[in-house]
Structures are given as C-alpha cells and as structure tokens.
C-alpha cells in the first residue's frame, strides 16, 4: 500500500476549496487531490500516493515506471477501492 504511482493530469478544477484533478493511470482514471502540489497543471505527470499528488516527474520517467508497475501487476491492487469512482 505504500506505492506511489505516476499518472498524467487530464483536467483540474476547484471542488469547494480543494484543488482536484482527473489523473490517468493507463486505462484507469481517478480523481486526485492536488493540494500538496498547487503548481501542477493539466498535461503534467505527477507521482500519486493514496489519491494525493506528492511530486512532479518528467513524462519519460513517468511512463517507464508506469509500465514497470503494470508488468508487476501492482497497479490494480494499488487503486483497489469499494467506492464507486466512475
């Protein structure tokens, strides 16, 4: 559960005072809190942990880590949730 995974910010918006973004992890998208990384914008790649972006990384690095996590089968488990996120 301590993994942090890179994803791409698709859109950002303000949700009653909380800056959120829709972030894409391969085929899955999730709503992510951007409050710890206020400068992050659409198109940026960010490292995400339990729904919070914690750092920005460049695109190539992000895609490489992403492929690796996917090949390890760790991605699905990391995004597991009983809450409907669609």
């Amino acid at each position: 559960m301590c993994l942090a995974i890179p994803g791409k910010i698709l859109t950002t918006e303000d949700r009653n005072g909380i800056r959120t973004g829709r972030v894409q992890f391969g085929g899955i998208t999730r709503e992510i809190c951007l409050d710890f990384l206020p400068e992050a914008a659409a198109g940026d790649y960010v490292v995400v942990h339990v729904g919070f972006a914690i750092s920005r990384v460049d695109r190539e690095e992000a895609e490489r880590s992403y492929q690796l996590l996917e090949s390890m089968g760790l991605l699905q488990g990391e995004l597991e949730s009983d809450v409907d996120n669609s």
Partner: protein
Amino acid sequence: MKYIDEYRDERIARELSAEIARRTTRHWVLMEICGGQTHTLMRFGIDEMLPANTEMVHGPGCPVCVTPLEMIDKAIEVALRPGVILVSYGDMLRVPGSHTDLFHVRATGGDVRIIYSPTEALKIARANPDRRVVFFAVGFETTAPANAMAIWQAKREGLKNFSMLASHVLVPPAIRALLSSPRNRVQGFIGPGHVCTVMGYREYEDLTREFHVPIVVGGFEPVDLLEAILMLVTQLEEGRAQVENQYVRSVTYEGNKLAQKILGQVFEVCDRKWRGIGGIPESGLGIRQEYEDFDADKIFALEGLTAEEPPECISAEVLQGLSKPIDCPAFATRCTPESPLGALMVSSEGACAAYYQYRRHMVAGRGGN
C-alpha cells in the same frame, strides 16, 4: 536472473552490477528500508545479480507489516460495534489479529470497506450521516499527510460521524533503533524514496553523522536499486558515510513543504509500538488534542488493549535484518499468503510475501547448499 530479461534496461542493469562487483572488496550488509523496494529486488532478482559479498537484508518499511497486533484487534472491535462502517486500505483487511481478521468480520456481516484514498473515507461519511465512519489509517510519512488532510477537512466541514484509528509510523526513528541494537549487522541503507519525496532527507543526515553509516535515498525500479547499491558500496569502500540522493527525479532536499505542513497541524510525534520489533520512542504520529473529536481511540475508549504475537513467527528477526524469511520454520508451510500467520506474509511489500512469490524454490534447497 529470469525476471531482469523482461526489463528494457537490462544492459544498464548488467553494467551496474558488474561495476558493483568491481568495486566490492569486502563483505557488506545493506538494507533497503521500503517494502516496495523489497518487492522489486525479489521480482527482478537484483539480489542474485550482486556479488556474493554484497548481502541485502530487508527492512521494516511496510506499514501493513509493522502495524501492531493490538491495533488490528482494536479495528476489529470497532468494526463489530453497531452502526459503524470501518474503512481502510485493502491490504489491512487480511492482516491477522489475535483471533480473526477484518475480512472475516466483513464476511460475517460487519460493514468493512476498502478505500483507495482518505478522501473516499469522507465521501462515505457524508453519504451515511446516520452511521459512524471510522478510518483505520496506517502508513509512513508518505501516507500521513493524506490521512491528516481527511481529519482537517472533516473538521472544516463539521463532519460529526467521522473518526480515525491512527497508527502512523516514522522511518528515521526506526533506522535509529536498528542501528542502536547491539545485534545490528546493517552497514548501509537504501533510503525510502517516497517517504523522502514528502519529508526531504535532512533528518537522514543526523543518522549518517551519529552512526557513521551511508544512506542513499533510492527509487523503486531495478536500475534505481542497482544504482543506489553501487553508490552505497562506493561510499563504504571509500570509508565515507553521507546521505546521497539517487531518486532525484522525485526527491528534493526539503521535500514537499505543503504536505509536511498539514501533517504537523493534525498529528504530533508520539511513541509507537512496531509489530515484530516492539516499542520505539518517538517513532509514530498521533492525533493532536485540537482534533481529539476525530480520534477513534478516545471516542470508542479503545486505549489499553494489548495482544501477543504468535510465538512461531520470527518477523522481529526478519524486520531487523537478522534473518531471512526462508529461515522461518513456518514459511510456505503453515504461513502462506492465503493463510498468513504473520503480517509480513500479507502485503506484497512484506518480505515474507515477496520471498513466497519469488524465492520459494530456495526452501527446497534449504540446508542443502
């Protein structure tokens, strides 16, 4: 070496491992702190690419694994109370408590739900105003700011039916405890890349000075780990003990200031018991008094519960780098991921689970070579 072939940087990996072999003149014992790093080491056979005199031991950096037994028992007790919805990260449901685990509680009618993010815990609380939602929150410094945010936001919204059973742990005090032990074997550490993404690595400089031990903050991919090992071996061979940052693409010296700020607002440093290791002073984060209305420990009067580990489990030895999972007599026999005896067998980041997945063959050869 089977798995490394799948990785596209195979050539770099081989060059790095050859360089490590060239530079190593003595036996060095290195520990990776983070469970995610343990998983990568095993999955890609990094340990098998190293020269025989570079030994990797596996650290306590899996929050699921070090959450003390009595916390699991507390979570189970709360989940059984009427009107409660207990929410937590997926792996926590399988961790064995003294008598049962949260999955069994759920299977027998308890409302236990898996969340991916603390924000989902709040969502559930808002949607169920007549129920009490308790977030069983574990994690290291990487996770604690996100968990803190849930409490901060609940207070701001005036959410009355939300509380947290908090069991956060801190990495530097655990390293200090390991190094202070008279039985310590570890001579260099791969630092936790994501913890340092949040916290920076200033605190680690004190450790290198105090114990004259090198620490290299490392990432999570095979090449990251090999590079971190090379940097550690180089320091050791040259007699240096410094903090170096291999994971520069995510970690800065100062870390993420905003995450640190919310963490400090909601939580304060406290003593904490680690599963398998025991009590470590000032090694955890507890909820500050200003937020005690959200402290499940107080609301449900859970303080004072204690529990004993199954005697067969040698996780204490494993977590301190004194034994390997395959040394445990229960490994892969009475203790498996389907039916774990100890917490190290639960999360894929736990050392025993990683060995079960990738090193089970070693058991057959145990004692034979």
